[in-house]
């Protein structure tokens, strides 16, 4: 069995999770603070990929990044790099599709954060940067952690947009999900079943990790008392 799809899926999911982690927190922080009108508008834009079919996201990404499209052409001319049909093209797809999960969970955490904690720190002379990293983030860590794990799990399982923008090339762009589809299409049922099992195993481990983290937080609450 060629393990390349597993390796490729994991690195795509890890890279996109790293990107989403910062982008999601940043977006959530500013949307949580924004005036109502801006908030409503940005919220729709940031959440849209969650409800759009992945093929629509893939189509839009291709329109933006394809080699004949303005941005794709520009990058091709400047750096001689094609943005689609490489293994890392899938990162674009997974970032866009998984971003709303991180953004929404983090925003929920920021919005339930007690503003008086920030006010108290301000009156104590603490800078807003200090407050963000030393008070707001630790108090919201549960939501942020949950969002990160969800985004990772979603990125790992992304199929539609990924297959459109990175395609399926064995040993180059194949991920677990695209491999399963290809194997099933070519009637290789036994191997397809194995990959399905691998996928289920990974997802189960991720979910168990989430539960474990939550339980540790819950038992730790008596002592450690998160917000």
């Amino acid at each position: 069995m060629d393990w390349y799809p597993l390796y490729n899926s994991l690195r795509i999911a890890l890279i996109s999770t790293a990107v989403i982690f910062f982008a999601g927190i940043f977006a959530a922080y500013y949307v949580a603070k924004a005036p109502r009108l801006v908030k409503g508008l940005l919220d729709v834009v940031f959440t849209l990929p969650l409800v759009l079919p992945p093929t629509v996201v893939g189509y839009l990404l291709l329109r933006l990044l394809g080699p004949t499209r303005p941005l794709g052409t520009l990058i091709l001319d400047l750096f001689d790099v094609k943005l689609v049909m490489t293994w890392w093209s899938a990162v674009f797809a997974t970032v866009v599709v998984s971003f709303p999960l991180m953004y929404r969970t983090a925003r929920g955490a920021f919005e339930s954060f007690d503003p008086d904690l920030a006010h108290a720190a301000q009156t104590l002379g603490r800078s807003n940067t200090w407050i963000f990293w030393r008070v707001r983030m630790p108090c919201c860590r549960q939501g942020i952690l949950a969002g990160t794990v969800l985004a990772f799990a979603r990125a790992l399982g992304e199929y539609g947009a990924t297959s459109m923008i990175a395609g399926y090339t064995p040993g180059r762009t194949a991920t677990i999900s695209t491999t399963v589809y290809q194997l099933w299409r070519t009637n290789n049922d036994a191997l397809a079943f194995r990959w399905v099992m691998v996928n289920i195993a990974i997802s189960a481990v991720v979910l168990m990790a989430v539960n474990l983290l939550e339980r540790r937080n819950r038992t730790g609450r008596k002592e450690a008392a998160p917000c």
Partner: protein
Amino acid sequence: MLTVDIEKTYGNFHLRAAFQAEEEALALLGASGCGKSLTLKCIAGIERPDRGRIELDGRVLFDSAAGVNLPPQRRRVGYLFQQYALFPHMTAEQNIAAGMGREGSRDQRRRTAELMARLRLEDCAGKRPRQLSGGQQQRVALARILAADPEVILLDEPLSALDSHLKWQLELELHRLLASFGKTALWVSHDLGEVFRSCRRVCVLDRGVSSSVMEMETLLEAPGTVSAARLSSCRNIAEVRPAGEGRIQVPAWGVTLGCTAPWRSEATHVGVRSRHIRLGTAEEENAVPCRMVQVLRDVDTDLLLLQPEGAREDAPPLHVEVPRGAAPSAERVTAVLPPERLLPLAE
């Protein structure tokens, strides 16, 4: 000295607070929703007033005309939040240290230890806020405020989150702390009893508008307004019409009462404290024949609820305080409202 003169509109709520506090503990008294917390937040820089000026010991913290609005970080205003706002993920010690700069320095550790000793928190150092009692939490919050070395301390209903048996202990503690602080403090409360012992002077906030600053005794003897009278727990308040020759008519009670001085024309209401009404005979001045409605046992007095004979249907009963066990069993009694005890009140 703290000088506040600000205005702020919040939806259809208008705050108009103007007062001056010396190096003292000044009580800011008002019913809930009257703008007390908003006033404190404006002073701390958490909220921005629409107009006005805030000055602390000659430093301008806010001045809309001059375009000055210092961030909370530079105001040196200590703020004790109603729920204390301790950082839940930090230990008591870390919370207190958060009030100081120069993290991890020897100076910081020394001052943290000093403050913990001063507020008797040595045993709590490594505990998180949720493991502490309400009283300990408040002491940590106070230590944290003192660590930041403020020029003024704002106390937002400091005793409201506590059980009554803790309240008294903490009130003593706050009293002592404020005395040793020696600078200006504002104590916001809706309960006169709470601030009466610790503050000499008081400013009453009624639906967003502040009264002039007065002595606590003045609030009791001549509250001047209906809201101040209510806050000083005056239970008998009714609308009046001047009846000439130093007399007033009280339609709600269906009586005309004599006063010691000519009735002030701006006083639309009269107030009489329940402990100032006594039971007497019909021959006495300002005697009001009443029907007994109910007798309530208070902690160490009895409280009579009396319906004046000529009272309007919807009028609330007269509250009369008598010593424990002195409640008459008669159906009809005569209440005497001494002229010198009638408080003229403006709306």
